[in-house]
């Protein structure tokens, strides 16, 4: 009956409120911003540009206009936000974050108000924007908890776009996008390096399983054009090798294109134009390589862009004759379809995963925005022993890993703070069920989880659903090892 006592006389259960501005990711580099089509540095007449971009965003996004106009500041988003829970910074309450934009709207642009001159825009305010709109992982949990359905990730996305038009961005978005334009992926792995890495993978796979498995690069006419989760290649090779094992087990030839070898879309951390340009590269590469299927690896925001946004970004695949399935496919969805049709009948050995007591972490984008809920769970049922986390922290209400929205590499403290609510749940799972392994279907989640599990000393490892499946398919190869050994 706690809710009968509205006056909270006890001390706040949260940590002491503090400013979290030091945790924000660094600002974008000048060369990267120019390559992304943005001004290299803050424009001299930024006030006018700021208001013009704001007006343009209001004309373009109904969600932005709606969310600015109809917040009642009820505070329902405060307990929903992982970053507010983790940092205890009151400006990280989603409504307060959005109020940074709402204040500008009311003072300078709203109808029925007396508009102040643009010179009244102070740099302090833009500095607050730069800090707090880069402390959101675009996970959309607040949108689920808001009675009005206000999606602060939309406000964050649009405000990052406005900031970018002034020449202010985070290194995650601009650096990631610029690296994608330079090398095809946001980690900056050069095209020749892919051949070497894939040759190394082939040797490792042969060593592990005793079966020669091809990991081709830029192969014309392969059946599958695979968008590899490049985080996995860099930090979590076991999960990456699992994709090769899965394709081998399915008997399907696959290839990776060095023109776009990244399942995630760093443009979505920056603005619409760069998101569209990076998504466009997939179709351009597919036209060169003529695959039958285009399959996204385990990824979060990249999969959301491909499956939800691509249709409105001029990506009509219906005219692509070479494609068998004229829509993006997720590897988890695809693997589940194969499994459902009996492609792996009698070949799955769940005992290979017996040392792992698994729990499943729903990635925000895949679960909340793309509805990828049942497939990974049914695959897990087939390949391992696993326990569901408590209700309210799974499915559409899943908690953030802390690493979304471009926060993963360059602001590790912030990612750890955003991971805190999930870490509490995982600690409970470890205590009650003895879980020692967290499976997920997003490469960003995987690396954020691995870092967080190590930092909070939870005694668990992070890995992938496809990784567990590959272990069960090739039980002699690497099944006993913990996932994040690399």
């Amino acid at each position, binding site marked *: 009956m706690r*809710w009968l006592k509205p006056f909270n006389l006890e001390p706040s259960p949260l940590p002491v409120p503090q400013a979290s501005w030091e945790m924000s990711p660094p600002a974008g580099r000048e060369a990267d911003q120019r390559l992304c089509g943005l001004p290299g540095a803050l424009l001299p007449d930024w006030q006018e540009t700021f208001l013009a971009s704001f007006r343009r965003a209001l004309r373009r996004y109904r969600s932005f206009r709606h969310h600015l106009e109809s917040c009642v500041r009820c*505070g329902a988003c405060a307990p929903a936000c992982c970053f507010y829970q983790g940092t205890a910074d009151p400006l990280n309450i989603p409504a307060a974050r959005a109020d940074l934009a709402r204040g500008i709207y009311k003072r300078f642009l709203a109808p029925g108000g007396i508009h102040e001159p643009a010179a009244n825009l102070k740099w302090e305010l833009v500095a607050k924007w730069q800090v707090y709109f880069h402390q959101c992982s675009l996970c959309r949990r607040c*949108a*689920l908890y808001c*009675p009005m359905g206000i*999606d602060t990730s939309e406000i964050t996305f649009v405000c990052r776009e406005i900031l970018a038009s002034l020449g202010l961005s985070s290194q995650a978005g601009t650096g990631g996008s610029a690296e994608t334009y*330079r090398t095809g992926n946001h980690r900056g792995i050069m095209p020749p390096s892919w051949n070497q890495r894939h040759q190394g993978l082939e040797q490792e796979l042969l060593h592990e399983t005793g079966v020669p498995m091809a990991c081709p690069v830029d192969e014309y006419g392969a059946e599958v054009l695979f968008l590899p989760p490049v985080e996995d290649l860099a930090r979590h090779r076991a999960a990456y090798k699992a994709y090769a094992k899965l394709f081998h087990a399915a008997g399907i030839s696959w290839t990776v294109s060095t023109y776009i070898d990244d399942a995630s879309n760093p443009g979505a951390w920056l603005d619409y134009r760069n998101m569209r340009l990076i998504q466009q590269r997939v179709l351009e590469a597919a036209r060169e390589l003529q695959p039958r299927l285009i399959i996204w690896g385990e990824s979060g925001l990249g999969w959301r862009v491909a499956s939800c946004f691509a249709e409105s970004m001029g990506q009509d695949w219906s005219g692509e004759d070479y494609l068998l399935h004229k829509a993006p496919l997720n590897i988890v969805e695809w693997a589940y379809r194969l499994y459902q049709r009996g492609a792996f009948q009698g070949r799955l050995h769940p005992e290979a995963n017996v040392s792992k007591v698994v729990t499943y972490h729903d990635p925000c984008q895949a679960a909340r925005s793309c509805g990828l809920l049942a497939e990974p769970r049914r695959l897990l049922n087939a390949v391992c022993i696993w326990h569901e986390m408590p209700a309210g922290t799974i499915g559409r209400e899943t908690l953030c890993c802390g690493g979304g929205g471009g926060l993963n590499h360059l602001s590790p403290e912030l990612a750890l703070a955003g991971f805190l609510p999930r870490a509490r749940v995982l600690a409970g799972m470890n205590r009650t069920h003895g879980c020692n392994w967290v499976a997920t279907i997003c490469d960003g989640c995987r690396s954020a989880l691995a870092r967080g599990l190590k930092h909070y000393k939870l005694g668990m490892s992070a890995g992938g659903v496809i990784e567990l499946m590959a272990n069960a398919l090739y039980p002699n190869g690497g099944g006993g090892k913990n996932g994040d050994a690399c």
Partner: protein
Amino acid sequence: MAPGPFGRWLGGGPLGGAAHRRLGPDRPRLENPIPPRVSYMGVLYLIGFRALPYAVAIWLGIGLFYRLRRLALTPVPLRVEIDPPPFQGRLARLSLFSAVFLNVVTQWRRHPLMALGSLNMHLGLLLALSGHLRFFLNPVPEGLYFLVPLGRGGGYLFAAGLALLAMRRLGDPRLWHLSGRADFGMLGLLMAIALSGIAMVHWAPPDPAAVKGIALGLLHPSSPPGPWPGWLLVLHLGLALALLAIFPFSKLMHGPELFLNPVRRPGPEAGFSPHVNPWDQDYLGDAPSREAVLPGEPQPWTMEAYRRRLKDHWSALGARQVFSAGERNSSRSGREPR
């Protein structure tokens, strides 16, 4: 007509303003005074209880139309639906239904105090307004008498819900950071309307003829002014008019705008058309800005470079002649490569 509060200082009185001034205060009263055609009191009555409500209604209509039209005409460029409604098919098309249903059901478990307060408040407002219906009907149909106690209870519910919401806003330290003048001001305004209404039920009931006169006068604008209704009703009515006047430019727009929220819209599987981004054509033929790359900086990995790499790769594999995708298509179809 009763003298009313303005009678003394605006020249009203038993004779009416014009007659009083013409005759002067010291003149003896006529036995059978000629009533003025329009008294000052009457003019004030007509302004306050006829013209002002009409003006506010027109203002409200224009404001609502303007705001909602502008919101509805703003495009929804991307698919941002979340939380698909628990019903598919025809029922899900009623976005009104799904929005309200989702709010009540989902918020109940997550924020019970807020759900209780806002449910009480909104439901109470609805009931209280239905209780006001009897003022506009003459005679009141007997079948509608049940609305009188309902409206009364609705008033209490309304006030109780507002009190809960105010206590929640004051009691939760997280909400102190969010709350501003607009939030407390709106709670205060609604509370004042509720309390003045409740006071007219219990403490100082106004002349029923005066209330009826105002309400029916709104429906029949050419009818003569009615009796003075008392200060409390003027306060109640004035606050309600103020609320309606600021409605289109306040946070109260969360109600009508909820049904235009693209995040709460049922997805394409519910029968809505797929998203079309009207301004995506601004980016047709867009490419990374190569001219922005200064000498010495790494060059972008363009399609031309990629095609060169593919040619080299396939030549090394033993292909005699390597076409790029565009050349391949043009050799097949005879068209220019894209």
